[in-house]
């Protein structure tokens, strides 16, 4: 069996070896000509080309679109308006009254998104941490429970939104259950606060498993002897958590916070299917605003949508930089200790 495996390996690697031999000489020549840095650039070039074509170029186009007006698709057919789209998005007569803003629904979406990010990320981190701590214990059928929490991550966001809509709808499963036990049904998706909480709850349900898995990996990497030493010292469990678990979990926690923040700012799919942005504009988030203005409206305004997406991108970059700065500060503190 082992000999068969070796032979199969040889068959597979032989062409690769032949190919490597074929390009060896030109590569050595190239390295002599360009130096070590040139060689690094050579190997990075394909990746950078993909990044440039699929990320930087669209970003440049998006910025260009945000400085134009009209409904035409091609830039050459559009009127250059400079920062007028940004000015329209950001101008308000009275910033304490969103109804006075030229694009009041942009501000509503911005406010909703900010509130969503704060509440959803906080609740998600707390829930994911608790879940990871529980799943890290010696539970019966631990693998089963891990799979249960991870399962919603595998579902399409549209499926998640639909399932929960059928549950929370006026005639949904939840109200049928409440009605059966004599409790007055609630219009979960028509009451502003319930709808907003539903959007938070559903997105947490959908993503909890992914973040809990990252935290679980962090928990399992913490050396057991630290806990044993703490136990021998008689350290209370809460102190163990705050002094050992949480500090050593920080690198993973930071990844979770950054990813959760970015995902929360981009919230769209589950919430859109669940509430459609309603009731009114109670769950209108930035991405849906951009989608409505740029794509869904009968008279589309790609320039305004592009400007809104650039502002959203700037918010995301700022959040990421903030998190990276915090991460570096933590690293420096850890090294000093």
């Amino acid at each position, binding site marked *: 069996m082992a000999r068969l495996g070796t032979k199969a390996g040889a068959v597979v690697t032989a062409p690769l070896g032949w190919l490597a031999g074929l390009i060896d000489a030109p590569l050595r020549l190239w390295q002599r000509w360009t130096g070590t840095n040139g060689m690094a650039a050579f190997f990075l070039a394909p990746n950078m080309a993909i990044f440039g074509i699929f990320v930087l170029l669209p970003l440049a186009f998006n910025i260009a679109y945000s400085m134009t007006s*009209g409904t035409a698709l*091609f830039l050459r057919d559009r009127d250059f308006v400079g920062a007028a789209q940004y000015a329209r998005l950001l101008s308000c007569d009275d910033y304490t009254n969103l109804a006075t803003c030229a694009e009041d629904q942009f501000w509503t979406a911005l406010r909703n998104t900010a509130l969503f990010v704060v509440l959803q990320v906080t609740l998600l981190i707390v829930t994911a941490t608790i879940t990871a701590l529980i799943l890290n214990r010696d539970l019966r059928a631990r693998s089963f429970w891990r799979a249960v929490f991870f399962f919603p991550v595998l579902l399409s966001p549209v499926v998640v939104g639909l399932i929960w809509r059928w549950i929370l709808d006026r005639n949904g499963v939840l109200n049928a259950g409440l009605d059966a036990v004599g409790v007055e049904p609630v219009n979960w998706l028509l009451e502003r606060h319930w709808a907003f909480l539903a959007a938070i709850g559903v997105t947490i349900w959908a993503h909890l498993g992914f973040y809990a898995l990252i935290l679980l990996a962090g928990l399992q990497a913490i050396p057991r002897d630290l806990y044993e030493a703490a136990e021998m010292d008689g350290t209370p469990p809460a102190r163990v958590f705050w002094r050992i678990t949480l500090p050593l979990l920080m690198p993973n926690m930071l990844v979770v916070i950054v990813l959760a923040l970015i995902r929360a700012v981009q919230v769209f799919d589950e919430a859109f299917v669940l509430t459609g942005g309603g009731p009114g504009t109670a769950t209108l988030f930035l991405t*849906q605003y951009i989608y409505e203005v740029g794509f869904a409206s009968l*008279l589309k305004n790609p320039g305004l949508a592009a400007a809104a997406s650039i502002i959203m991108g700037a918010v995301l970059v700022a959040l990421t930089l903030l998190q990276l700065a915090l991460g570096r500060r933590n690293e420096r503190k850890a090294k000093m200790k």
Partner: protein
Amino acid sequence: MTLRKMTTAGPLAALALGLGLMTSTALAGDVRIMWYSDGVEGEVMKDLVAQFNAANPGINVILDEVAYKVVQEQLPIQLEAGEGPDIARVTNLKTLAKHWLDLTPYLSDPDYWRTNFGTHADWMREDGSQAITGFMTQLTLTGGFANKTLFDQAGVALPGKGATWDDWVNAAAAVQASQGTAAAFAIDRSGHRISGPNVSYGANYIGADGKPAPVDAGVKEFAGKLVAWVADGKMLKDTWVAASGSTYRAAADDFINGAIPFYYSGSWQIANFSTKIGDAFDWVAVGSPCGTAGCSGLAGGAALVAVKYTKNPEEVAKVMEFLSQADIVKEFSERTLFLPAHAGVVAAGGLNWQTKDKNVGPALDVFVASAADILPAAAALPSWKWASAYYGAMANRISQVMAGELTLDDAFGKIDSDIAEQVAAAK
């Protein structure tokens, strides 16, 4: 095969496959139709396309069935890029009119089209143009439906001809109270749907210069009624409040499920009701309730239009000529239960609606009769370029009032500014 041969053959095979895939979408003689369905019309169109393909071996018609959302959101982008199908079934006819092909030079008898489809030709061509760009696959008219069984069970008489919106809503509210339905009535979340009632209260969207006029007393009166009906629980809250922006929401399922005794939508629901309601209850079409200025609905419909970016205009014209023949239009209408737009077919009458549902024939008759009640301000809207801007702004802002986010006066100001912004952006 040597390694060298393999390394040469692999990319060549991939290239050949790629070229094959590319050419499969652009063969001479291919005609692609982008088609969406509300009911059974996709099945009917498949049969008609099969008939055409059998009779025209040199032309291969491919029916791409898509969701309505694709037609609304993706087709405009394809058209702006100079791409898209050869023929498309669309409802947003006027806004996209610059992308339609003038079939006149390719048609064997353009006068046949002018005679039979001329009434609605302006709906699908640019202002001032005399182009023949396509034909209406069906005419639609907005109007109401009543759940007769619920009215009978409640002992409430159906309001008769000339009944106002208040009469209908109050009668339906009596049924709601008696039968415990979720609401008295619902109207689709769409600016188009409330435009007939707005006009019935004297609204006119079109200014003297052809541009959008500011929101007037007619719009204000009916919008005020809608908001009040939501507030007092007579109008189903779900349809308008549970969405934002200009998102379209129909309340057809609520009517089908018996959750509302009265529903204002349009003639295109007839086939849907016939299929889904079956004999669960009796329903009737009741036309449009009256306002202070009349009892107007709003005409509309879907058209099959040729796209000017087609590589095969002659073949496209042949397909369009086949589908626009009187006997084909008649078959399509009879099987889909859609009102035909072909003047000759309408004049000849004798349509044999292919249904065993006793509710369908009378319902279609009501809509045909209601067409005479369309007021001029409503009749002008389907061919008016800025109608979509008006519709979207009204749906968006009035639903915000219903959700308690704006006052009616604020909403009217916002509707005006939203429309002005869209007009400015579209320049």
